[in-house]
């Protein structure tokens, strides 16, 4: 068995509105390894969440996967997810069972009118043949496993009586109910405060180690990347501009955008005189994109060549970059 859980190859997802087309994802490739965490980093609107929705086939109504392939390596063989009907029985059997997802805001992502137990049980009811009694026990066990105190009591409570951190744990319990092979986490801690954030990450790392779950973590926070990632993909305007192992990206960034992202983060403890360089300009209008490299108008290294879209270059076996000038970026220290 290969150690790859999910392979995304040159996927293109377009969103249509008012007869206009936003190429939200325009040729994205990556693979998620078993028991490893892949972080997709990028600013708002770069296509991170659309990538996740494409894998789950939970795209908004007026959007479509126009090209490329998403291959899920299940125990029973390869499944081409992009070929499955969006809401067909086979896709539904994968969702929540083989590939599960947790969302940004646990306040709104849990249904307020059902108990936590009910919402976890739903998952088990549709994906397993467990008896009602076994399901009830499993819900309690899951909550306990996620580090929720008094799980027998919590299981009967409604989301509004749980704290934010508890709710996200309940959310993760729901996602982990069927022991999925892949867990997609779409900015799971953005709505939580920092201490809770650390606890949730600890929990995710533990689950990864115990169950061999592959994690696709979507974030805009480089600190999170340093903490959790095994592999990193940096996205900008619907393309992966640089991808590699966490060391490749954080220690040897070769794309000007990655560099700019890294130098725009204040570091705690370096005092108030540290130089923080924000990225100049703002992201272009997705309906009115610059030609060639999307980052060129904001880039310090831009040249004539950047009017054309660069090809992907492998600077190391694990490290690829989408830039004409990556050598100059590397040389500039």
């Amino acid at each position: 068995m290969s150690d790859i859980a999910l392979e995304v190859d040159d996927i293109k997802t377009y969103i249509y509105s008012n007869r206009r087309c936003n190429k939200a994802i325009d040729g994205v490739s990556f693979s998620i390894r078993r028991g490893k965490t892949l972080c997709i980093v990028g600013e708002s609107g770069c296509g991170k969440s659309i990538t996740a929705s494409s894998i789950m086939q939970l795209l908004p109504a007026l959007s479509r996967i126009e090209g490329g392939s998403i291959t899920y390596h299940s125990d029973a063989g390869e499944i081409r997810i992009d070929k499955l009907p969006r809401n067909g029985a086979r896709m539904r059997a994968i969702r929540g069972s083989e590939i599960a997802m947790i969302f940004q805001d646990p306040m709104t992502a849990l249904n307020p009118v059902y108990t936590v137990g009910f919402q976890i049980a739903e998952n088990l009811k549709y994906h397993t043949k467990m008896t009602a009694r076994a399901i009830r026990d499993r819900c309690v066990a899951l909550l306990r496993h996620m580090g929720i105190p008094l799980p027998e009591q919590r299981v009967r409570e409604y989301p509004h009586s749980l704290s934010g951190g508890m709710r996200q744990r309940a959310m993760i319990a729901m996602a982990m109910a069927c022991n999925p092979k892949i867990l997609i986490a779409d900015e799971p801690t953005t709505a939580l405060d920092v201490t809770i954030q650390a606890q949730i990450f600890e929990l995710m790392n533990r689950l990864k180690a115990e169950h061999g779950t592959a994690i696709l973590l979507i974030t805009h926070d480089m600190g999170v990347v340093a903490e959790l990632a095994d592999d990193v993909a940096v996205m900008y305007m619907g393309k992966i501009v640089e991808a590699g192992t966490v060391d490749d990206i954080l220690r040897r960034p070769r794309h000007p955008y990655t560099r700019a992202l890294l130098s725009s983060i204040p570091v705690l403890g370096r005092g108030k005189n540290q130089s923080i360089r924000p990225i100049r300009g703002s992201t272009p209008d997705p309906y009115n994109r610059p030609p060639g490299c999307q980052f060129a108008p904001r880039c310090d290294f831009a040249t004539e060549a950047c009017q054309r879209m660069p090809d992907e270059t492998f600077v190391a076996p694990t490290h690829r970059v989408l830039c004409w000038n990556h050598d100059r970026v590397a040389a500039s220290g």
Partner: protein
Amino acid sequence: MGTFILRRILILIPMLVAISFLIYLGLELTPGDAVSHMIPPDVANTLSAEDLEALREQLGLNQPFLLRFWIWLTNVLQGNFGHSLEAGVAIKDIFLDRLPATLELSGFAILFSTIIGCFLGTISALRRGSATDNSLTVVGMLGVSIPEFFFGLVALSFFALHLEWLPVGGRLMPGYDSFWDRAPHLVLPVLVLSLMMTAGVMRYSRAAMLDALSREYIRTARAKGLPGWRVNLLHGLRTALTPVVVLIGFRLPALIGGSVIIELVFQWPGLGNEFIAAVRGQDYPLVMMIALFSVLAMLLASLIIDVLTALIDPRVRLE
């Protein structure tokens, strides 16, 4: 929840007393009195002022306002609702006679409009932007904006006068008083009343359903791999119900107090018709009781709404 309901019912009593005082005061401020209506002007002219005064004395209309209110209130609290000044009939008997007719009409209208309205609203929301949705939206707008008397008259002239399928009005024919005998009489008023209400319920449940479907927990439910019907009904419709329950709940008292216009158009012998007659005749005791009954229905409806919303949404706590 039990103590909550009990407490709310106990609060009803002082509220009803206060409201009945206000209604009594309002009636007191209107010009003229029952006597001037009971006796036709030409007869009144032949009577002496003393005779009229004697009649007022006899009816107790000459006593001070507060005293009259007190007498009325103590009587009502003892279950003695008094007599209609105009017809001389016990008000209790008028209620026993008229209330079933009103309840029959409103009951069917609420039943049909709730079921059909929620159903169409949900369909409309699930197929947002489709031809079905658009045509239902147009029908709904028409239903909300056409006044019910107009729609009632059109229905009457078409189905009753032109096609002669259904009776023009009334409820009972002498000698025929089983439900199936009166069913033909029921069809048109129930149809008109339900259509008006269905339009409102439909617009409301569509909006509530769209709002529910745009929530993130719907995406969570889909991400769990649940089938579409379960996502839409259990996660969508269930949370969309609260505003719809409130809307229907607040329709209840208006309908129980008598849907005045519909009853008038179809000559339906319900409380609404009686109410108009009583107001015209300045029949204080009767106006008081019908108004009070409507108020009671309103207060009870808001209690029912509170209990139902608490049952639907666990975040609502009854305290």
